[in-house]
């Protein structure tokens, strides 16, 4: 699986939505499935998937799928 596929898979699992929903412009709280509870599930899913530990500032900053890619890039994950 490519990193983009892994990312889509992690989002889809954490938010319990179909993979087609996961587009770069999908934003936090734009769909009922992505709320403050599932956000923390998503963070740990991303951490497990990519083997990284995401800092607090980035948890707050992670406001869309596109932003998630940008943040993970800081942790040396290439998309």
């Amino acid at each position, binding site marked *: 699986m490519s990193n983009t596929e892994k990312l889509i898979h992690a989002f889809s699992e954490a938010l319990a939505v179909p993979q087609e929903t996961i587009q770069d412009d999908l934003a936090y709280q734009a769909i009922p499935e992505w709320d403050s509870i599932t956000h923390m599930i998503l963070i740990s899913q991303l951490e497990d998937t990519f083997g990284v530990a995401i800092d*607090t500032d980035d948890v*707050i900053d992670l406001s869309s799928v596109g932003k998630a890619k940008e943040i993970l890039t800081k942790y040396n994950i290439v998309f």
Partner: protein
Amino acid sequence: MLNDLLNTIQYSLTRDEKNRELLPLLLERHQWHLGSCAAYRDIYNTVFEGSIRQPATLADLPFLPVSAFKNHELKSIPDSEVFKVLTSSGTTGDAVSRIFLNKETAQLQSLALSKIITHVLGKARLPMLIIDSKAVFANKQSYSARGAGILGLSVFGKDHTYVLDDNFEFDEQVLASFLERYDGQPFFIFGFTFMVWLYLFNAKTGKRYDLSKAILIHSGGWKKMTDMAVDNSVFRASLKDRFGLDQIYNFYGMIEQIGSVFLENSDGYLHCPNFADVIIRNPADFSVQPHGVPGLVQVISVLPQSYPGHSLLTEDIGVIMGEDDASNGWKGKYFKVTGRAKKAELRGCSDTFKSR
């Protein structure tokens, strides 16, 4: 300028610096709300017109009583911009306060909270032990203030572990395996003050767990604790004695004023961050009380933009314990809250407010 205030290291501004940095931002907020919120303008014109000179210090700023949020729709943005409405739980029978947030103000709120909490926890998220049950989220549509508090703090933790089961019974096994998992490492404990006391401290087993590496943040007020005759110093001393837990931070804030997040300093007093301040007022005439003299707590925060909550008179009684000289080196005022104002005092207070 607001971003500078949030992004610099917290607890770094002394009295004069704070006045210089905050006053222009607050005057800007005041003007904005006068122009954008009819209810704010009405209250201001009725209560303060003519009686307030050009503010020279933070103490000269006009202030709204928190009860105003129950009786008025205080909103400085068009309906289309409302992103979230916060409501206070309130006591039974009371009207509910409604606080209107737009995206920008909501973001400022999470940024402010993060600056304060990471100041004591560090940037990396720590394993988090929650002295509560997942059952507080059972009804997703209307979880309580407790649920909201837990969620708000969850961003600072990982491996969120709830020590109470679905029936709110203390699960010793969960605690033991958490402690084993993170043996020798720092971790984060969060809970409401009375829950920490009832369940962690008074756990039936009375075991002396080693919590010396833990950092405890707790919140929720002292009403229930006072009923059990436990004050802050007893609380701190007991946890230290039984568990070696000495990094303890009480947390005071209110839904009506985002950004008013006051964390306890090492002396056990609530400390104002760079972007907020506290003034104590005489309940009879609203004059400013000197340090050491109790009165009504007025909270000031530069954050509220979507609603006029930048300067509020609360119904809490508190006292300033010092300024710029806390023993952990934090600058700014520090205070303690000693209780709620008596109904009669508040009635007197609101009469005065009306007649001014």
